């Protein structure tokens, strides 16, 4: 039970570090890096929370989890109750506890963080979810009384999954249409096993199926059937588009088509979705290479870098045109990458890719940058330094500079309003698009963002859809989530 401590004493308890596999061992395996708290660690960490009357942490969580309440339950050893609190607003805590950029979200606003290190909210969330996973005690949420309405969800990433779960609870018949042969979106094809074990994703998806949600894989909306067909011919009463940001960007510099130059999507798909790291036991090959460089420094880049190490590369280089401070990756990933021995070249941008006569990449020419005036995003703009070019020899180059919206659905759906970047425009309170009955959320609306934002959007859309089905149109202006 809770100890009787003064706030200062609580704050002074050191934040409990995350147990992790040893860097030297883990750089050669695909097992999960962060091992998770034990019950003792979790209860001790929970003591650090001040149980604020005005909990700022909640403002930092995109789905507004009642953080002090669930932490109190952890402190008291009532882990199942803690989970119930979390599940009121977050259906996938085992996933969010692992991949949320907490330092920018809940933990960034935690009051303890003002003077000391913030309460490890994400790790506690993961702990609580893992207890359930290990004990297999998950209660499948009950599906609501059958409404008779049918909803089609396009895409099985976090936005589609959370939208489906919510709609099933309202009692609607839900079918998820997924283009690939496995559901999960980025959670399955993008984020590697060592950061998010695929068993966890599978478990959550199976729970969804137990709630009665049907999943149709190998169904490419826009090709196998259009959005219009889903409504007109297949008889769905509403449609949710959660197709993500799956279109890889290249740099547009010479030599990008040499063999061994991969988009991050291709590299990660070959390895995660197709299990290329187990070739020849699995049939999909991937080029390994002794020296691998990755362009970019977000989460996607970190995943590529650390994957390359695990595939057996000797030297793995990160090329980023700004500095560590501007790096958009989660802090934990950046630190893990550093510990594992990634060679970071900050303020460095590729200008040309070189290859041999057989068409294989051999090196990349880069230029050093310096930071100039702030740009539109508020970050200082990198400016090339004349005469600072040099060449880096390598076998593989992975481009992880971002993704855009895949136009398969948007271009095959006349009347769907898009912004100039090709993202779908929605009413933010209902998530309805310019086509009545067609809703959208997640990366296809916001551009590449985060798992929790996509989940939150799926949930808001589910409510919009529910209201639309009941009244024929969603009520605009209702407050966000919860």
């Amino acid at each position: 039970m809770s100890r009787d401590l003064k706030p200062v004493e609580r704050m002074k308890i050191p934040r409990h570090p995350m147990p992790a596999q040893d860097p030297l061992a883990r750089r050669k395996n695909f097992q999960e890096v962060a091992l998770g708290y034990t019950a003792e660690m979790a209860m001790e960490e929970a003591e650090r929370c001040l149980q604020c009357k005005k909990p700022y942490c909640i403002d930092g969580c995109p789905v507004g989890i009642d953080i002090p309440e669930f932490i109190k339950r952890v402190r008291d050893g009532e882990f199942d109750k803690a989970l119930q609190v979390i599940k009121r607003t977050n259906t996938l805590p085992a996933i969010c506890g692992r991949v949320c950029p907490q330092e920018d979200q809940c933990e960034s606003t935690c009051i303890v963080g003002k003077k000391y290190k913030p309460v490890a909210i994400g790790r506690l969330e993961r702990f609580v979810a893992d207890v359930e996973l290990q004990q297999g005690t998950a209660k499948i949420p009950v599906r609501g009384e059958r409404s008779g309405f049918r909803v089609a969800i396009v895409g099985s990433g976090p936005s589609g999954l959370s939208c489906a779960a919510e709609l099933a609870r309202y009692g609607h018949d839900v079918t998820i249409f997924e283009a690939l042969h496995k559901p999960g979106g980025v959670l399955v094809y993008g984020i590697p096993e060592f950061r998010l074990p695929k068993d966890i994703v599978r478990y959550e998806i199976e729970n969804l199926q137990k709630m009665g949600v049907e999943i149709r894989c190998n169904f490419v909306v826009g090709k196998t059937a259009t959005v219009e067909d889903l409504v007109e011919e297949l008889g769905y009463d509403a449609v949710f588009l959660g197709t993500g940001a799956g279109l890889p960007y290249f740099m547009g510099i010479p030599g990008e088509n040499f063999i061994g130059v991969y988009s991050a999507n291709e590299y990660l798909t070959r390895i995660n979705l197709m299990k290329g790291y187990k070739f020849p036991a699995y049939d999909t090959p991937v080029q390994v290479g002794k020296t691998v460089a990755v362009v970019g420094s977000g989460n996607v880049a970190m995943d590529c870098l650390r994957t390359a190490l695990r595939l057996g590369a000797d030297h793995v280089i990160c090329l980023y045109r700004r500095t560590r401070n501007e790096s958009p990756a989660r802090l934990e990933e950046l630190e893990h990458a550093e510990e594992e021995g990634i060679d970071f070249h900050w303020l460095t941008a590729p200008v040309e890719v070189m290859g041999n006569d057989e068409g294989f990449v051999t090196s990349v020419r880069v230029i050093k940058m310096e930071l100039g005036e702030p740009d539109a995003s508020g970050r200082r703009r990198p400016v090339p330094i004349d005469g600072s070019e040099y060449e880096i020899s390598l076998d593989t180059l992975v481009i992880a500079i971002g993704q855009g919206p895949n136009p398969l659905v948007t271009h095959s759906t006349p009347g769907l309003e898009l912004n100039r970047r090709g993202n779908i425009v929605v009413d933010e309170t209902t998530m309805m698009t310019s086509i009545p009955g067609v809703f959208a959320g997640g990366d296809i609306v916001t551009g590449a963002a985060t798992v929790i934002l996509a989940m939150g959007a799926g949930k808001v859309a589910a409510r919009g859809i529910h209201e639309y089905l009941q009244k024929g149109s969603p009520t605009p202006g209702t407050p966000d989530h919860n």
Partner: protein
Amino acid sequence: MAQIVAKEEIAPKFMKYVIHAPEVARKHRAGQFVMILLHDHGERIPLTIAGSDREAGTITLVVQEVGKTTMEMALMPPGTEIEVAGPLGTPTHIEKWGTVVCIGGGAGIAPLLPIAGALQRAGNEVIAILGGRTKELVILREEMEGFADEMIYTTDDGSFGRKGLVTHALTSLIEERGNPDIVFAIGPAIMMKFVSLLTKPYGIPTVVSLNSIMIDGTGMCGCCRVSVGNETKFVCVDGPEFDGHQVDFDLLMKRQRTYLAQEEEARQRFLKDHQCRALNAQEDQR
């Protein structure tokens, strides 16, 4: 899941499969393909839809055995369930041009069938030139005869039709009767390259169907990228058909060889694991 309902060996190392995939059959248009996956450990590979039957809910694939996946598929009995996604790619642009020459080589003859059919239905005069190394590799002759107003055959060894390459037949055709209005060429990259080189000085529009390596087939990975008119295009969504005069075939051919070493390893392992007579016999022919 889709199901293999029938299969037939139509030539040495060429299998024709009928696959139950009603949603794909319903939407299929000439020029489109599917991505297939044989099982959990498999590789996703693209195969062109050589025909479809909406009533029966089936599609036809004609597949040449070249490596692990296509060899393994050949061993699968009817009734086997496989994953099939499609129809993918942009359908062939069909129009009434006048005289159209359809050139097919090897496994490329299969995808040419529905295109020739659509061209004929649109009122074109279709002349088909089909080529192969030897007579029995010039596949689907009867089927193509049903769609073409005139047939020309070529074999490298002269065992059937005229001896030589499809480009020789095309040259004679142009010399004898002047320019056709458009040429469609589908086959090995090298064949499409030489057809395109041949037609370019004559100014004959030439459509080719590119067979780059793919994974998803939906524009998500960029692995299928090619250079067309100095612009990078994704074959799976922007194609597979492109203006042959704009395609950088040398780049395509290089990129096709990306995994040569791994493919050979997989093939050898597969042969070792399946020491059955049929495969050994095929091995002898190589």
